[in-house]
């Protein structure tokens, strides 16, 4: 089966020049992400997950190697609005209502008013926030704010969704619920998703492909293709298949640690 490669990293290297000398954040990253993949990046703190995601989004420039998105350079892809980016904090503007926040990228991209309104309503429904459009961010719970920021990233129909620990600050129950919703959303929209997490169960539950990274310098320790079906009820997490994949991820993480 041949699949379209959307994101292709080849021999990617990135070194930050800091006052305390160079920090080798990414070393020799080779990775293909196919259309419709749900790829999780997991690894200990400081191993370069955020940096890699930012490099895909052309928010950082690699020092060596290449990265292409939809066959373009990352910079060109960013300019053609190929992705929606969700940061760890919701980052909603406090002076805009939820609708206003979701409209922001649409205003910048020049959608007309009627289209904006229509899209806002559609994505609010996708993240189950219908009726909250006129609220200000501080009137919503943390989980709702995070959903609103996901809605904002979905509003302009980018094919790729990059998410950096979007549920990191939320409690387990809310997290489970949002994970379920995210999977449904992914199934419905067939987007390609890059997802950073610290949680093994979260990575296994969500992903079709799990990228285990190890630190100093940040590199890929293992890439695990999930054998789980695309349809995933929450209790799939108790099946032997799930536990086996989780085990492999844990092994990968441990191997990365033993290295230094």
């Amino acid at each position: 089966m041949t699949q379209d490669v959307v994101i292709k990293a080849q021999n990617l290297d990135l070194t930050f020049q800091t006052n305390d000398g160079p920090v080798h954040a990414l070393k020799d990253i080779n990775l293909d992400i196919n259309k419709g993949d749900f790829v999780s990046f997991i690894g200990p703190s400081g191993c370069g997950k955020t940096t890699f995601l930012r490099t895909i989004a052309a928010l950082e420039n690699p020092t060596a190697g290449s990265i292409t998105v939809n066959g373009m350079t990352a910079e060109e892809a960013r300019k053609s609005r190929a992705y929606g980016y969700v940061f760890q904090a919701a980052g909603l503007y406090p002076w805009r209502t939820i609708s206003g926040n979701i409209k922001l990228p649409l205003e910048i991209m020049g959608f007309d008013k009627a289209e904006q309104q229509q899209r806002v309503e559609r994505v609010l429904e996708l993240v189950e926030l219908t009726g909250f459009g006129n609220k200000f961010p501080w009137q919503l719970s943390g989980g709702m704010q995070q959903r609103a920021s996901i809605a904002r990233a979905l509003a302009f129909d980018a094919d790729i969704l990059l998410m950096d620990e979007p549920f990191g600050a939320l409690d387990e129950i809310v997290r489970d619920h949002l994970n379920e919703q995210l999977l449904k959303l992914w199934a419905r929209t067939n987007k390609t998703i890059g997802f950073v997490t610290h949680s093994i169960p979260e990575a296994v539950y969500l992903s079709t492909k799990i990228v285990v990274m190890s630190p100093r310098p940040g590199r890929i320790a293992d890439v695990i293709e999930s054998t789980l079906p695309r349809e995933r009820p929450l209790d799939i997490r108790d099946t032997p298949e799930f536990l086996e994949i989780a085990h492999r991820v844990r092994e990968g993480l441990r191997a990365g640690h033993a290295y230094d």
Partner: protein
Amino acid sequence: MRNILPILAVVFAMIIAWYAGAFMMNKKWTYDQANRAGVELTLSEVFADTMAQPRPVLPAPHQVAVNFWETTVEKKITSRRSLVFHGWITLKATLTGFILGTIIGTLLAVGIVYSRVMDMSILPWAIISQTVPIVAIAPMIVVLSNSVGIEGHLVPKTIISAYLSFFPVLVSMIKGLRSPDRMQLDLLRTWGAGKSQTFWKLRLPGSMPFFFAAVKIAIAASLVGAIVGELPMSGSGGLGARMLVGSQYGEPLLIWSALAAAALLAAVLIFIVGTIQTITLKRMGMAQ
């Protein structure tokens, strides 16, 4: 009601202290007069006299209140003895100076935030400008603007007023325009926003709380600037000119009434700005 009680208590204490001060400072003149006339005064007679002298060292509150009433409500507002007449002159200079200062402060802040060269070249001078005492350069500005042939007194007063008010706006707006964090700026980048979109959609609205904090200080500074600008030009009118006339002719009541008018004006201006702030920030969802 619970808030008003402590305020009233403080006001009450201040009025008591004021009366006590008036008694202490004016009684010397009363005793001198009595000595000269060779009469003995009881304490209550001394007290009554200190409260009603025509030219007291420190007028009692009710004297100021009466004089204030006479020179505002009971005078035609076109009269040169009316504080409303002079207050209007001061208000005009305050508002023009305030508007000019706010515009200059905001524009400079935008320049400094967007241009490294301006950041390095303008900001130090702006800071130095505020270390020069305004009373020292106010007369110079008046003389200079006269000698270049500028008619009237509004222009020099506006300049002095703007000179004082641009600075708080400048400092606050630099901070406000720089307040968006890296994540918010990065978000805009992922959407392909340009510089001007970043300014209008993120930096400017984000700076509003800073703007209003600064504008409250700026309006008070503008009033001070206008009054200081009026001091060297008693002929031009204005509350500052009234204070000067009062001190030249030994009329303390006049000075105190003008002071009261200036304080009232400041309170009203700050209240107006505060109300605009509350309404704006509330509509922006940022009021607490």
